[in-house]
């Protein structure tokens, strides 16, 4: 269990793809003692990626385990470690510990209609889940994806949209915050689109991931639309170090985001302090 605990394996960078101006996607192969090893995980789990000599950061896995092979991480440059990652090249290696966290409750989601709601880089953890659902299409009901960003060039993973739209019984609703040249789609904040679409709860789960302010309004709107707290799923973010429930800094109340999360149902969030 050392690779989870504190000693990382090697994540060899195979390719780097630009997601937005400040976000890169790293495709990595996992190596142990110089040999490539399999890496199995659930959608919604994350890993601690490190740049040796600089530090470690928790990054969500954006690929899906239904497509074995390379593992993908979308990294936005926000601090020292992510800045160092952005300076890396294919062939370079990072450290990796994982998979960590609980992941989405995919088994319990089977048979349900799913409403995905994402804002900005919040699509990164959802992308793995969306692709998981589409790869097991017959296990799930109708799929709606509402995704927004501040501007068209800040929409992450735009190469996925056409594939998603083409999947059976799947709709993609894109929006940007303010009108922009060349943009013919919706304009408006994500919560406004959620309201406008007004998809009834019924057999539907909502999975939301995005900036705190977006989540706040989306949760209110979903509650007003009659979604039960158990049927609303979101992910939380906290400062983390160990990622395995020992270093003590990612707790909210008695829950540790690294091991009890990062995925929570709204019904669970209502049992802990709103210190996030």
């Amino acid at each position, binding site marked *: *269990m*050392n690779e*989870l*605990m*504190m*000693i*990382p394996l*090697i994540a060899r960078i195979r390719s780097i793809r630009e997601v937005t101006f400040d976000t890169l996607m790293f495709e990595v192969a996992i190596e142990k003692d*110089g040999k490539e090893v399999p890496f199995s995980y659930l959608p919604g789990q994350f890993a601690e990626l*490190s*740049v*040796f*000599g*600089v*530090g*470690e*950061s928790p990054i969500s896995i954006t690929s899906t385990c239904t497509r074995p092979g390379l593992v993908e991480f979308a990294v936005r440059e*926000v*601090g*020292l*470690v*992510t800045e160092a990652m952005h300076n890396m090249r294919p*062939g*370079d*290696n990072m*450290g990796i510990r994982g998979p960590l966290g609980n992941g989405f409750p995919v088994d319990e989601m089977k048979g349900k209609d799913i409403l995905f709601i994402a804002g900005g880089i919040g699509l990164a953890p959802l992308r793995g889940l969306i692709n998981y659902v589409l790869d097991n299409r017959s296990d799930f009901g109708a799929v709606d994806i509402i995704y927004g960003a501040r501007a068209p060039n800040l929409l992450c993973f735009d190469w996925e949209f056409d594939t998603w739209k083409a999947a059976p019984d799947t709709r993609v609703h894109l929006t940007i915050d303010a009108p922009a040249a060349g943009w013919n789609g919706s304009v408006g904040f994500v919560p406004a689109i959620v309201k406008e679409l007004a998809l009834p709860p019924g057999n539907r789960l909502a999975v939301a991931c995005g900036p*705190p302010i977006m989540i706040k309004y989306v949760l209110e709107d979903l509650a007003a639309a009659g979604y039960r707290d158990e049927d609303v799923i979101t992910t939380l*973010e*906290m*400062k983390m*170090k*160990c990622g*395995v*429930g*020992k*270093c*003590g*800094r990612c*707790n*909210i*109340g*008695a829950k540790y985001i690294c091991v009890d999360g990062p995925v929570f149902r709204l019904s669970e969030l209502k049992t*802990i*302090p709103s*210190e*996030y």
Partner: protein
Amino acid sequence: MTVIGYMKRSALEGVLGDISDKLEVIAPLPSGDKGAVELRRFEKGAQVSIGPVKPMLPLKTIFLPPVEQIFRFSKSENETTVTASTPITRDRVVFGALGCDIAALALIDEVFLREPVDEAYRERRTRTTIVALACEGQGPECFCASVGIDPVRPGGADVVMIPVKDGFIVETITKKGEQLGTMLQGALRDPTGPQKKTARSFTSTSRSDVDLSAPAGGWSAVWESEAWEDASARCIGCGICTVVCPTCHCFDVHDERHGNGGERFRKWDSCMAVNFTMMAHGENPRPQHRARVRQRYMHKLVYFPENHGAVACVGCGRCAVACPNRTGIGEVADRMREREEDSNE
């Protein structure tokens, strides 16, 4: 529990010296010029401090060192080699551990020995024999009896030494303790009747009236308690309470680069520090001092019990002694459970 004999106080350093040929010996030794005591490696010729002074830094330092290397790495062209660090090289014995500190290890075990197990911690735990010194109470700050700890024969000890006139009655408790007992044989003699009687009736002055019980209604009942306003107003946020606490175990992780290689190490950290929850993008879920003070006490009194069934406090009283403003956990717990403002006045 078996009484294996009586050891003279004057024989102690000699015995520890002999043991130190086979094991690493850690004992309370004098530190500095103010009568302070520190748990550190015993070398032959050193004088052990047995007395009414608690080491300022608790026993956890022996199992979770303040700074601990996790691994070293070296880089060549496209390869990085990671070498895990060795936590300890020899089996060890800690002599003179206090009941409060030993009880705290059981609480830290809850966190560090659950999956995934912290291997460095486990290795230190399994390769260390703990010899408790029955504690008669080390000062007015002591209240371990309030949190269900037996300061005389604390659970978790392998051997217990009970002070009697000019020496100790030695009792072994575990298999590990029996093994250590064989190393003590040369210095033991049969205890006299009065010595055995003294050992049997040995008691502690620890206070038993400090109430750390959780509030009825859980965290939400006390989330907006005046206790946080009171405690955080005078608290300077130095975090020394977390340094001296036998149960505090939060750590930070740092990398250092040296040439083509470097190291990763972990280091004690404190929830009282502003940066503790500050994220790289600048968000901080606990930006106010009051929220950090609340986190510390809630973790000890509410969250830890919820997760592990016990209060994360062993009643050593070090926090109140070390705090520049002498704030103790019992006082805050009382205030937390109060319903109305100022009802204690």
